[in-house]
């Protein structure tokens, strides 16, 4: 850039010297030519100040301030400026004035003063502006931190799939509802909801469809529940928190609404899915309630709804829960009880209706419980079946029955067979054949003196393995009986495939023989069953025979054998055996 037009050569010389002196003292955002041009202008002002009457200090102040404004703003910049003005200004410009030294001193003082003032202001301004920037940056960072904390908190308390609150948030809200001061007398409720057969959707249509379905259900529940908190606990489990209820009716209404919301068919990716849910309801007073108990109660109540067939709600029942807890405790004690030998067998006679002889005995397991006394099978077998402990327990019964029965033949007379109940799980378990074979070998019990009782439901499965196993056992000579015939499945087709030896007709048909009106029908059914059985070469044993009259009529229709109090209650083996000796 060119020097400013009209600059005289003399001031130019001084301005160049000045520019050279301050170069490098601080960063100057201009070219050397621009700098010289600026300083040339200031030189004019300084010269003017030296010569003008009266002497005006403000000119010096202005020059000092202008230097700072032009960023010639450092201690060195000032020092060199003072030096170059003092040494060269008067000489280079050829200035002539009275008391020029005096004026020069005052001018330099004014330049330095103006310069220092401007630099101080500038420093304070810059400090202020950087501090303000730091503060603003910090405010922004804090705001961002709060936003990210809120985001983090949201992520930590919500389920990403459905956007619903998750277990963490639900637990917090439940605890807060229970701990809120002054709420002790009020009531709180929880609906624990689970989709019925959701696994089938996942297994057949894939997890993607399953997830979409969950999102739909979540959205429907959220809409239908309004103010009540709906959370997803995981999988297809949802929970609804009703923080204030007026009683169980309120909760039932909430549950009905939820069931209705789920019930509408859902269109997911072209599949119309008919879904239903089960709900466990717990409703109780806030005082004395705690979240863990409440959730556990809701969970077991949900299972009642499920086991009742689903698509329904169930209301928590403390007594039922107590019973279930007791049953659970009992089932958990079975393995230890087996080890301690707390189980034993009683036998109930199966008596021939032709000649009154003892043809067999049914082994019935008993539990001599250290605290509860002797327990009958109906108080623990069902549970053992649910938990799978039946395999262990049933195995023990089978072994014990074979062991005891073998000893009976020592009496000489035709020893009775022993009839042992097999649970579904036992029949379906691989290795049944080997187990029975080994027992027969170990005890020496002849196969025809062992009868295995299976229920009709055992045959409901389409699996072939159990049928094959039973056929092998039958070929060995083991007797196979169908227990409780006529009350369950009663599909006669399996009689064609199974090597059955005997039908045991359920006691309820026999019970009917007491009253003449119903009795006629039952008697006809029994007669038909007997003739059917005989046509198939099977024997028939009637269960639950309690009177001589019943026995007489059964004999009249050709029933082969009978079992029941009329013929003898279950008793230890030696007492039964006394009858044949």
């Amino acid at each position: 850039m060119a020097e400013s037009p009209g600059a005289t050569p003399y001031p130019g010389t001084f301005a160049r010297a000045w520019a050279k002196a301050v170069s490098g003292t601080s960063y100057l955002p201009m070219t050397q030519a621009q700098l010289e041009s600026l300083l040339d202008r200031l030189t004019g002002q300084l010269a003017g100040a030296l010569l003008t009457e009266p002497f005006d200090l403000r000119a010096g102040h202005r020059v000092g301030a202008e230097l700072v404004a032009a960023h010639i703003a450092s201690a060195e910049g000032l020092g060199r400026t003072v030096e170059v003005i003092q040494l060269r200004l008067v000489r280079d410009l050829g200035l002539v004035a009275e008391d020029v030294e005096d004026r020069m001193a005052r001018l330099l003082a004014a330049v330095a003063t103006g310069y220092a003032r401007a630099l101080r202001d500038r420093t304070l301004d810059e400090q202020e502006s950087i501090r303000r920037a730091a503060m603003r940056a910090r405010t922004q960072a804090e705001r961002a931190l709060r936003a990210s904390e809120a985001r983090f908190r949201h992520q930590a308390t919500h389920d990403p799939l459905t956007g619903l609150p998750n277990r963490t948030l639900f637990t917090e809200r439940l605890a807060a509802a229970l701990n809120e001061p002054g709420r002790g007398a009020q009531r709180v409720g929880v609906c624990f909801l689970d989709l019925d057969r959701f696994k089938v959707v996942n297994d057949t249509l894939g997890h993607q469809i399953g997830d979409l379905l969950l999102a739909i259900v979540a959205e429907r529940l959220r809409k239908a529940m309004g103010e009540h908190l709906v959370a997803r606990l995981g999988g297809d489990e949802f929970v609804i928190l009703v923080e204030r209820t007026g009683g169980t009716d309120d909760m039932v209404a909430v549950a009905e609404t939820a069931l209705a919301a789920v019930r509408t068919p859902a269109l997911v990716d072209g599949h119309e899915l008919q879904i239903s849910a089960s709900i466990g309801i717990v409703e109780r007073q806030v005082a004395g309630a705690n979240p863990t108990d409440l959730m556990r109660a809701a969970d077991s109540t949900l299972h009642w709804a499920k086991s009742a067939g689903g698509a329904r709600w169930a209301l928590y029942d403390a007594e039922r829960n107590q019973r279930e807890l007791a049953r659970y405790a009992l089932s958990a004690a079975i393995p230890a009880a087996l080890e301690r030998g707390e189980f034993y067998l009683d036998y109930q006679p199966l008596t021939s209706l032709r000649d009154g002889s003892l043809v067999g005995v049914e082994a019935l397991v008993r539990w001599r419980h250290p605290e509860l006394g002797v327990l009958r099978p109906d108080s623990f077998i069902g549970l053992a079946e649910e938990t799978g402990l039946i395999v262990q327990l049933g195995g023990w019964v089978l072994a014990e029955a074979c062991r005891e029965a073998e000893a009976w033949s020592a009496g000489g007379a035709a020893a009775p067979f022993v009839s042992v109940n097999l649970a579904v799980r036992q029949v379906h378990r691989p290795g049944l054949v080997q187990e029975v074979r080994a027992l027969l070998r170990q005890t020496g019990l002849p196969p025809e003196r062992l009868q295995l009782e299976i229920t009709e439901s055992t045959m409901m499965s389409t699996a072939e393995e159990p049928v094959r196993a039973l056929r092998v056992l039958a070929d060995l000579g083991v007797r196979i009986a169908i227990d409780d015939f006529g009350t369950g499945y009663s599909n006669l087709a399996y009689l064609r495939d199974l090597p059955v030896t005997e039908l045991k007709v359920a006691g309820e048909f026999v019970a009917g023989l007491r009253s003449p009106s119903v009795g006629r029908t039952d008697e006809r059914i029994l007669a038909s069953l007997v003739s059917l059985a005989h046509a198939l070469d099977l024997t028939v044993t009637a269960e639950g025979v309690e009177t001589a009259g019943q026995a007489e009529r059964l004999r009249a229709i050709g029933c082969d054998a009978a079992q029941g109090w009329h013929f003898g209650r279950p008793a230890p083996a030696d007492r039964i055996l006394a009858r044949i000796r």
Partner: protein
Amino acid sequence: MQRPDWAPDTIDIERPSVARMYDYYLGGSHNFAADRAAAQAMVAAVPEAPLMAQANRAFLRRAVHHLADAGIRQFLDIGSGIPTVGNVHEIAQQLDPQSRVVYVDVDPVAVAHSREILAGNEQAVVVQEDLRNPEAILAHPDVRKLLDLSQPVAVMVVAVLHFVSDDDRPAELLRTLRDALAPGSFLVLSQASDDGRSEDERAEAERVYRRTDNPLSVRSRAELTALFDGFELLDPGVVWVPQWRPDTPESAEDAERAVFMGGVGRLGG
């Protein structure tokens, strides 16, 4: 990763900031005690430090002038730091008020300060981003709004690349930027070089900058030249910054004392 990527920065003015240290070298007062202490330690180790900053700043000024004269009206200044004197938009908009400038810096205080300086200037904006994340810079809505990448842009990577270690692959970062530019765009690059420096000086400088968030990675002329890959270097190539088209022959004297090397490249095609 310990901290999720959306977690915010923290502001700690007890920790020296390279942007505010640079301001101190330039004679500014936009700095705090910790910045001054670190800058003074640097000056003790490398007495030319203030000269370096000034020389680099003058290089920036001359480069912007040159590019504006060449018709460039869009500037992307990455690592712009604390806006002190002679900012890109001041230079460019003085020549053409319609020149558009986007500043990018990673330091939240520098960004907050820039935002204040730029308030009311429709043609200039600052975004908080990291040179090490060029995709984010290019995709930033403010960048997209102000700059038309189908037209030539001058990308300024001035006095910042020595804060990018080789592990962060500076060549790839520059390539990403280059690939987004239209033909006729420019790259202005400068950084601290260790050519002709003693091992002691380098070690001491590195020690000072380890106190900041930005450790130092000095590079040789050859390394810097290689970073212009894809650009045609303008004369006189990669040189000590005072040697790059000096205003006066004297101002290029003792150029190696400036420690910074730089150059300007043009994207052909």
